[in-house]
């Protein structure tokens, strides 16, 4: 497995012509290359977790160049479908597994091991020309975003704020970010007022909010960090004073409740493959350093240590029950 063997790199033009003949040969002989799947690790799932998995895969290939790692992006839910069908070894998830997905895993017989890999701080942002908003409480967020909300103008949130229409931006309903935000702020995953500008493309949200003085929206911290100059961050008061998300406040849990852990789920039987086992260990050892490089916030060391323990003892199942609520606090507490 450790035999160093570089993949042949041929010039693309030569390759294209050669591939014609080769393709016909392969079709005729009907021979696949499935036996090569030993020494292969396949990941799929959330686009939020993708940058971390990509970074880990890139570093891993530097030390194990002969293992084939592939990372797909099908969304957390779409990834779980493939995962439960046995098509992938690892699923990237920006939320904990849902009870319906757990039921699927029981039906298909594939057990999974749940491993948190980093924090993301859902960030509330407004336009840089917005002079009035200095913080928002969880109650105020709930008032704005709850289904059937009566908030139309900024003055409906606080009377001293201007009587201007509030323009809301947020991720679409397929997103794990949407699930987490609605769960935390409105108490039920998927419960949100529908009359806001929704986009699956977070960059579209960034552009919308930075171009409209009355706009407000939410997305992952990485998108704020990459657009710091065009957006104003809103500190959130979860009951013990307003705190703005930052690598420190997300890491130590003081930015609450909008800090969320993001996960990878490993199929228990896939760990029998040496490549998968090796890769997962590498993932947990390097997730801290690499997640901050791509805009996320590392977990405390003890959480990675605990995750490694789960891998070594093959502890299957999820730590999140029916309510499906993953708080940063859960991971930080000593259980």
């Amino acid at each position: 497995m450790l035999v160093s063997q570089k993949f042949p790199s041929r010039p693309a033009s030569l390759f294209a012509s050669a591939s014609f003949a080769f393709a016909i040969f392969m079709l005729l002989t009907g021979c696949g290359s499935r036996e090569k799947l030993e020494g292969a690790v396949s990941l799929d799932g959330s686009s939020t977790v993708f940058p971390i998995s990509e970074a880990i895969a890139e570093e891993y290939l530097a030390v194990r160049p002969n293992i084939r790692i592939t990372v797909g992006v099908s969304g957390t839910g779409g990834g779980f479908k493939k995962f439960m069908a046995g098509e992938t070894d690892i699923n990237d998830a920006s939320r904990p597994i849902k009870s319906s997905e757990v039921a699927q895993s029981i039906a298909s017989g594939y057990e999974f091991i749940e491993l948190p890999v980093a924090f993301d701080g859902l960030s509330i942002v407004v336009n840089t020309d917005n002079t009035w908003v200095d913080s928002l409480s969880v109650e105020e967020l709930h008032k704005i975003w709850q289904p059937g909300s009566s908030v139309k103008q900024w003055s409906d949130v606080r009377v001293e704020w201007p009587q201007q229409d509030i323009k809301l931006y947020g991720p679409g309903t397929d997103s794990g970010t949407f699930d987490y935000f609605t769960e935390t702020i409105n108490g039920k995953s998927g419960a949100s007022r529908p009359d806001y500008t929704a986009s699956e493309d977070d960059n579209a949200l960034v552009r919308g909010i930075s171009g409209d003085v009355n706009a407000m929206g939410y997305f992952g911290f990485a998108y704020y960090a990459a657009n710091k100059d065009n957006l104003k961050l809103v500190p959130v008061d979860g009951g013990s004073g307003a705190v703005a998300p930052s690598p420190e406040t997300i890491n130590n849990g003081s930015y609450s409740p909008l800090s969320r852990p993001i996960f990878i789920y490993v199929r228990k039987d896939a760990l029998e493959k040496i490549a998968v086992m090796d890769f997962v260990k590498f993932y947990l050892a390097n997730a801290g350093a690499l997640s901050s490089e791509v805009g996320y916030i590392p977990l405390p060391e003890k959480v990675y240590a605990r995750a490694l323990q789960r891998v070594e003892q093959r502890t299957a199942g999820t730590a999140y029950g029916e309510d499906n609520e993953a708080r940063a606090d859960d991971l930080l507490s000593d259980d």
Partner: protein
Amino acid sequence: MPNSENTNLKKTGLYKDNIQTRRRIAALFQYFCALVTWTGVFLLALLLYQVSVDGIQWLDMQFLSSFPSRFPYKAGIKSALVGTFWLITLIAIISIPVGVATALYLHEFSRKGRIHKLIQLNISNLAGVPSIVYGIIGLTIFVRGLALERSLISGALTMSLLILPVIIIASREAIQAVPMSTRHAAFALGATRWQTAWAHVLPTAFPGILTGVILALSRAIGETAPLIMIGALTYVAFLPEGPMDSFTALPIQIFNWVSRPQEEFHELAAGAIIVLLAVLLIMNATAIYIRHKTEQKLK
């Protein structure tokens, strides 16, 4: 008398002597058409300009010969570009024979009954089905049903389904345009249907068929939705060695980079778009050249 006829016509209301207004309408229509055309050209030029400004700085050998990376300056499109070449090659191998044979059968051999009409109608309908639907079919039949997994061959078969209607319709039009007299002459000399089709109809229709094929392949090369649906991968740091290997392709890499938060990745996406456009341009240019050659030979 012409004059009295004129007044009579006017009385009936069928003739109005408003040549000025009609000329004005004609001029207006001409301006309108020109405006629409130039708006399109302008928007396209703007798009190309924007993409070039963003992406040209990243275009170098390193960009073409590196695998994707989290560092923009190290990232490249090697696996995506090679994946796209593989995909196009396989799609061509699968879809051209099937598409042309279908068109040939429908026009030259089959009896023109009710079933024939029904098939024609359905092929036209299929050409308008959204590409994501083909992705779902591909996922169900090829990836899961035939257990081909998320391989190049699954992607190529799915894409072939997507472009087959286009190839069939274009080939049929080209075959239809071959003069009946050509066939009659061949039959009169005792040629069989097969000999007529193979030696006379197909060569004459070839330039038209080629145009259709290239248009269809160009569509396939830029499609993203079906590939995402069947689960083509985003991060692949090896080159496929056979049709059963997993792969990524240029549109997927572009899609991924565009959705990243960092500006540099958006510029990388622009760079990849330039490469994709270049590949398309080369394909089209080759087709035009071949068509030109064969048309000359036919004359």
